[in-house]
């Protein structure tokens, strides 16, 4: 993501944006982990 962002904006800004992007995904994953889960059968075969 950082390399991709570097193409469009200055390096420092790309670094900040990448950190924000990854933090947002981690926060979303943690937040949604509490929701009911689906059964995933591929782990059972």
């Amino acid at each position, binding site marked *: 993501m950082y390399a991709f962002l570097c193409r469009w904006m200055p390096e420092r800004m790309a670094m900040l944006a990448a950190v924000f992007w990854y933090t947002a995904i981690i926060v*979303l*994953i943690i937040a949604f982990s509490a929701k*009911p889960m*689906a059964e*995933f*059968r591929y*782990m059972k075969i």
Partner: protein
Amino acid sequence: MTSLSATMLIWIAATTLITWLWPRRLQPYVIAACTASFFAWYSPLSMLILLVSAVICYIPVVTRRKDWRIVVACTGAIAAILVWFKIRQSTGADSPEYAVIPLGLSYYSLRLVHFTIDAWKGTLPQSTVGQFLCYLFFLPTLVAGPINRFQEFQRSLRRRRWDAMMFSRGLERILYGCAWIVIMGNYVISFSLNKVVARLAVAHPALSEYLECASYGLNLFCQFAGYSDVAIGFAMLLGFTVCENFNYPLLARNIGEFWRRWHMSLSSWCRDYVYMPVLSVSRLPALAALSSMIVLGLWHEVSLRYLAWGLYHGVGIAVWQVFRKAVGNRTVPTGLPATLAAGAAWFATMNFVLLGFAITKERSLVDALAVYRTIFGL
């Protein structure tokens, strides 16, 4: 996430850390030891079966005899173990102790069959017992694929070295994999979309059933693509390159293309070890397609509904082959713009695939037929 996934994340971190602390030549053995300890701790039965299967599979390599009877006996023994557990699982589905089959059995059985047949055919490069054990006891792909081949594993094993860029891409891949599983699969589709589907059930039963099939298929894609991302990312953390499992299958414009994009490691295994042998013996592409799709279906579960699902896709591919032969090089029907034809092909393929999920989504074929009756108003 499931408890297994949380456990897996801890093992991913521990295995990666421990592996890179050791000298490079010992690292593959450290990975194998970490996998063995994970299996011994999480499922001792799986560990025992994996070891027994590995010994069976290595017999043709040790004997160095190009005897087809040994290969048939070894692959037959591996298939028998797999089928026995599959039948036990499908007949005792209501009893928890019978419903679970050894961890990763379906995946490593296919790897073992590949290793045995390729060793017999002579297409396997020179290898040591250590390399074979590292290939088999490779935690990233052992639990839920991709079904990687020994040749690519050995190549990766020889070339691997510490690469910060690869490590970073691996971490990113794991993160995106978790996002697919938790956000898209569990929340957006299983939780939110299913709530909408449930609300439609009374007023629009046909639409509700159709959306339920779509939701099941999309959830399966998100979850499985997510787990594959985690596996590929984990392998990258250890310095290995593993084959991809999905290549935008929801963009496929015919059923043959769909199976070249969906669960690619399994479909390529079926192509090499079922489709090609049947085709070379019978010279009938339709029979080869039917056989490989039946094997692919029964690999998921030995039951009538998965047999029917395999037949459904096998017939679909056979019809597509006949259609392609009839149409020849005329890819666009006359008078119809190419984009419109491509859109119609995509729509037909997606509906064929999504409606096919009704067979595996329901507990029996009778229930699946009831779903079709509701959707088509029969």
